[in-house]
């Protein structure tokens, strides 16, 4: 039978049994719709999360103290193999390294006059605004100076500024964090959440001050931003060798952004498949429907 003839034959047959055809199509299309919608949702989530991760570019390597992978807690816990500010500074001098941001996080009360607020303190380097694409509403960010001898300066998150200095310009004013005095040099523009962390309520101070404040011997993490023309593997290899030379052996962990993305992508893909599979059940039932109708049609 020619294609055109068989097509018209099929259409005629379907039209003769239009209620039957319509219902079969309805059942099947609900199944398809369920599957498509769910897998789209999964895919959407995947894209969203990956975008969040790549917004700072993908040429980042995170260096944490300790050799074990401990759910990203490696840097947070105490360690007998600390990562120092001079380590971070030294890495900054390597060729192709564009910026180095040491990180020490903690919680403390920030006070300005009578107002106070318990919030998250991020001890970072002066390059943090550039690499994390932080925009300033007032003043400027922490200066890029000697990591180990930083001045007591602070940049406030947007919301925190409104809470501590409502309606006032805080630049040049002083705040107290854990008994120490910090001069406000800038206020961040509104940023919103990044992976569940509210940047608007954070406080940024120099990493060395953060280590003093929290009495930590080690940085929690060093984020290394490098020349995009160099591959992650090459860069990671260089840094690894450099650090082994400095510390005597490998007592740190390097994670490239590529690895993080690959892991994330894996997890989210599985999630997407699971969602699609959930929708596929309806499709399966719709398929059983088609089989049934075909059986009946054949019998007739």
């Amino acid at each position: 039978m020619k294609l055109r003839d068989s097509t018209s034959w099929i259409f005629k047959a379907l039209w003769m049994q239009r209620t039957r055809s319509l219902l079969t199509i309805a059942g099947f299309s609900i199944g398809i719709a369920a599957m498509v919608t769910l897998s789209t949702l999964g895919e959407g989530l995947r894209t969203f999360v990956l975008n969040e991760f790549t917004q700072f570019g993908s040429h980042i390597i995170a260096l944490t103290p300790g050799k074990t992978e401990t759910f990203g807690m490696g840097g947070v816990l105490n360690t007998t193999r600390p990562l120092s500010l001079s380590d971070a500074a030294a890495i900054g001098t390597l060729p192709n390294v564009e910026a180095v941001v040491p990180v020490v996080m903690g919680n403390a009360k920030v006070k300005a006059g009578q107002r106070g607020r318990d919030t998250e303190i991020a001890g970072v380097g002066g390059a943090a605004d550039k690499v994390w694409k932080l925009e300033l509403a007032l003043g400027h960010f922490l200066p890029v100076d000697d990591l180990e001898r930083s001045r007591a300066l602070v940049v406030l998150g947007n919301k925190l500024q409104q809470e501590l200095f409502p309606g006032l310009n805080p630049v040049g004013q002083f705040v107290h964090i854990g008994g120490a005095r910090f001069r406000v040099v800038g206020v961040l523009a509104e940023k919103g959440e990044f992976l569940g962390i509210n940047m608007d309520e954070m406080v940024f101070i120099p990493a060395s001050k953060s280590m003093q404040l929290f009495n930590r011997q080690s940085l929690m993490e060093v984020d290394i931003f490098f020349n995009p023309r160099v591959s992650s593997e090459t860069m990671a290899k260089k840094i690894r060798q450099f650090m082994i030379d400095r510390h005597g052996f490998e007592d740190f962990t390097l994670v490239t952004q590529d690895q993080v993305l690959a892991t994330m992508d894996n997890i989210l893909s599985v999630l997407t498949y699971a969602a699609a599979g959930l929708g596929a059940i309806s499709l399966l039932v719709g398929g059983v429907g088609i089989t049934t109708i075909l059986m009946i049609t054949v019998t007739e």
Partner: protein
Amino acid sequence: MKLVDQISFNWQIFQRHGLRTFLLLAAVGIGVASVILLTSLGEGARRYVDREFSALGNRVLIVLPGRSETTGGAPPIYGSVPRDLTLEDAYTLEKIPGVLAVAPIVAGTTTVAVDSRSREVITLGSNQSFFTVRKLAVGAGQILPARTREDAMAVCVLGVKLKRELFGNARALGEWVRVGDRRMRVVGVLEERGESLGLDMRDILLIPVRTAEQLFNSPSLFRIMLDIAPSADSDLIQTKIKAVITERHEGEEDITVISQDSMLAAFNSILTTLTLVIAAIASISLLVAGILIMNISLISVSQRRKEIGLLKAIGASSRQIRQLFLGESLLLVSLGSVAGILFAYSLIAFFSSLWPSFPLMPPLWAVPAAVGVAFFSGLTFSIVPAKRAAGLDPVLALRGVQE
């Protein structure tokens, strides 16, 4: 028409159309089974978490250094604060009535080595109470001695995996291990137990809390875990803990207290919501099955026109005809549901035997909900065919004329 007679009448129709009936049963069965199976995954996860928590004992409070007032209210996970939470702070909490045990925890990572074999592991500094609070026991040797409460003894307890990695099958008890720059004697090996709240208890090193302070050169506690009496008022104790620490910290409330109940409740509500969503999505398949039933019923009505005409001729009313067709769908849905439930439970039994540690089990509402949706869908989609059957003109129907 009596129920028994109606069922046997419908049953004879099913027997006549064996394959068709089988496929319809499969459709309903798949729907019901998938609702039950998928919700039992969600419920299983919930029970798993529940069990993990209750393995800790159900009355545990956790004190974290630091406080965060930021929106979203994530607890301060970093453990780094300007004013340390100290061992003295922890032991003061023992005086609060209703507090049974206080386990201070210093946490860090360090290198453990025996001869040339070395491993980097999570190291927890604590005392005997840690074993009480986390319901831990040793498989060999003993737990940390009572003196470790205050003394920086050079002793340690190994997780089973760590013991195997360092000593293989050789005896570890009484041997010396290098921990960072110190030497410590192994006094015990933990019993074999898997993960507990995300911490692999087989791969950790337990040392006295004072030893850990020296090792990490920091007086700061990472956490304090407290066991409280079953009859104690958890909220009251939490308030008292905050008051005691605030007083010791010169009027600054710089800690966060989390009760295990509230963590459990948070997990519970997340997982329950997830389970409900999954159930709703799986129910779409029952909607599809309903449409299928409608389709087949319509076909059945047109194929059985003569029979319907005859039934009317021998005195069946429209209502009876309608009932007959609705009954057919109901019976189909009932049998399909039973098949689905049996299928789901046998799969659950199968998977449970594969992974006995995961408590796979549907929530109480799953079976009624699945069957309820199946019946609702089946009935709704049978109304049109049943009406069509009931409305047939007996004269034309008897002649087999298509209207």
